C-alpha cells in the first residue's frame, strides 16, 4: 500500500497545530469528531472520518482536563487514524491505529505542558528589566510547544508512517485487532469514572441511578432523559430553597 505525498501530511500537521491552539482559546476544535470529519474531507473519505471521529468522541465523553490534567489525545488519534484508514484498512484499521495513538500522545501533551514553563521564566526575566514587548512575545510564543507537540507527530505519522503502518495493520494478528476493538468499547468507562471522581458521588448517586434506570429499563432516548433531568434538577433546586427562590 502506498502512502501520501508531502502536501496532505503537511496540511494535516498544520490542522493538528491549529486545532490544539483553538482548543486552548476555548473553541471546540480539538475534538475527534471535527478533526475526523476534516481529515476525511482532505483525504477524500468523509464518511470514514465521521465514523472514526464519532467513535473517538464517544470514547472521550466523560474526559475533561480538570485543572490541566492530561487525557488521551483522541483529536490527534482521529486525524492519524482517519488518514491511515482511508488508505484501505477502513474503520477497523483506522481505529486500531487511532486508539494507541491517542494513548501515546499523552506523553507529548505532558512534554508540551512542561516545556512551556520556559516561556513563563522568560517572562519573569523580561519583567525584571521592564521589557513589555518581551513579555508579550513570551506569552504569544508559548503556543509553539503546544502546537508542535501535535503538528509534528501528525505530519510524520501521515507522511512517513501511512504506508508502513498500513502494511503493519495487515500483519496484525486477529487477537490484536479483537483486543483493540474491545478496548475501544471499554475506554468510555474511564471517562465516566473520571467524571464521577470529580463530583460528590455519595451525595448524587441517586440521580445517577435515575438516569441509568430510564435508559436500561425504560429504553428512553437521550432527549427524554435530558428533559427529565432538567425537571428533577429544578424541583431539587426549589426544595433546597435559599435566598432567591426561583
Amino acid at each position, binding site marked *: 500500500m502506498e502512502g501520501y505525498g508531502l502536501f496532505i501530511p503537511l496540511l494535516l500537521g498544520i490542522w493538528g497545530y491549529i486545532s490544539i491552539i483553538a482548543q486552548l*482559546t476555548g473553541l*471546540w*476544535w480539538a475534538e475527534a469528531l471535527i478533526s475526523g470529519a476534516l481529515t476525511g474531507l482532505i483525504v477524500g473519505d468523509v464518511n470514514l472520518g*465521521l465514523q472514526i471521529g464519532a467513535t473517538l468522541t464517544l470514547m472521550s465523553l466523560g474526559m475533561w482536563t480538570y485543572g490541566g490534567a492530561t487525557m488521551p489525545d483522541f483529536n490527534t488519534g482521529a486525524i492519524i487514524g482517519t488518514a491511515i484508514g482511508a488508505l484501505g484498512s477502513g474503520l477497523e484499521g483506522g481505529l486500531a491505529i487511532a486508539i494507541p495513538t491517542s494513548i501515546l500522545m499523552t506523553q507529548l501533551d505532558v512534554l508540551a505542558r512542561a516545556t512551556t514553563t520556559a516561556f513563563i521564566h522568560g517572562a519573569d526575566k523580561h519583567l525584571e528589566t521592564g521589557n513589555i514587548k518581551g513579555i508579550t512575545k513570551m506569552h504569544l510564543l508559548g503556543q509553539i510547544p503546544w502546537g508542535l507537540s501535535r503538528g509534528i507527530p501528525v505530519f510524520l505519522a501521515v507522511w512517513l508512517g501511512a504506508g508502513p503502518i498500513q502494511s503493519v495493520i495487515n500483519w496484525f494478528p486477529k487477537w490484536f485487532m479483537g*483486543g483493540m476493538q474491545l478496548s475501544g468499547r471499554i475506554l468510555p468507562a474511564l471517562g465516566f469514572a473520571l467524571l464521577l471522581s470529580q463530583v460528590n458521588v455519595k451525595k*448524587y448517586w441517586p440521580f445517577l441511578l435515575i438516569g441509568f434506570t430510564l435508559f436500561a429499563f425504560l429504553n428512553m432516548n437521550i432527549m427524554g432523559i435530558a428533559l427529565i433531568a432538567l425537571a428533577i434538577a429544578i424541583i431539587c433546586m426549589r426544595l433546597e430553597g435559599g435566598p432567591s427562590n426561583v
Partner: protein
Amino acid sequence: MSDNLIKEVQEQEKIKIDKATLKKAMWRDILTLQWSWNYERMQALGFLWAILPVLQKTYKEGNDLKEAMSRHLQFYNTNPVASPLILGAAIALEEDKAGKASSSIKVGLMGPLAGIGDTIQAVLFRPIIAVIAASLAMSGSMAGPLLIFLAGLLWMSVKVPLFWLGYNKSTGLINEVAGEGLLDKVTNTATTAGLIVIGGFIPSILKGLVTPLQFARTVTVNGEAVEKIIKVQDVLNGIVPYLIPALIVGFAFYLIKRKMSPIKVLLILVGLAFLTSILGIL
C-alpha cells in the same frame, strides 16, 4: 454615609480606563488566555498579558508598574469561560488602585468558578452535545461536526457579557457568588441534571459490552431430554440490563478513587479488554 466618604477619597486616585483599552484586555483574555499554559503557573502569563494594557495606563511609574505586573504573574488557573468575569473584576479594582484586592479577588474567585465552569462544561454541556453530534455523524451527516463547532462558538460567546458583568460588579461579585450561596446552587443544579444524563449515557454508550458466553444444558420437556442453549447475556438482561457496563465503570471509578493515575487505569482497562477478548468473555 461613611461609604460615600470613602468613595470620595478614593475618587481622587481613581483612574478611569477608556473603553478601547478595556476591550483590548477582554479580547486578549478571551482569545489567548491559555496559549502559554504551563505546569508551573498555568494561566498566569495569559492573565498578565490580558490585563497588561490596563496596568500600563494605571501605573505610570516604572516600579509601580513592575510591582503590579509581578502581582499578576502569580499562579492563576480557572475555567477559561469564567476568566473574563474575574478579569473584569480585577480591572475594576486596579482602576481603584486597590492592587492587593485585585490579586486576592483572583485567588478567591478562580477556584469556585473553575468548579462551576468545569461542572457545567464537562458534566452537562459537552456530553449532551457530543452524544447528539456523534449520533448524527454515525449516520453519515456533516451536521454532527457542525453542531460541535457551533456549540463551541456559543460557549465562547458567553465570555463577553461575563467580562462586563465582572467589571461592573467588581467586589460585589464575591458576595453575589459566594455570599448568598448562588454558586453552590447553580453547581448543585447542574450536577443533579448532569448526573441523571450521565446515568443514562453509561449504559447507552457502553452498550457494546456484552458477553458472548453461552452454555448448553439438558432439560427434560415432557419426559424427553432436550438440549437447550443458554446465553449468559440473556440471563443478565433478565436481572439487570447493562450490568457489565455498570460494573466496569464502577471498577474504573474504584481505581481512580484509590488515587491511581488515569493513565494507569487506562492501561489496566486496555489490558482487561485484551484479556477478556482473547478468553472470549467479552
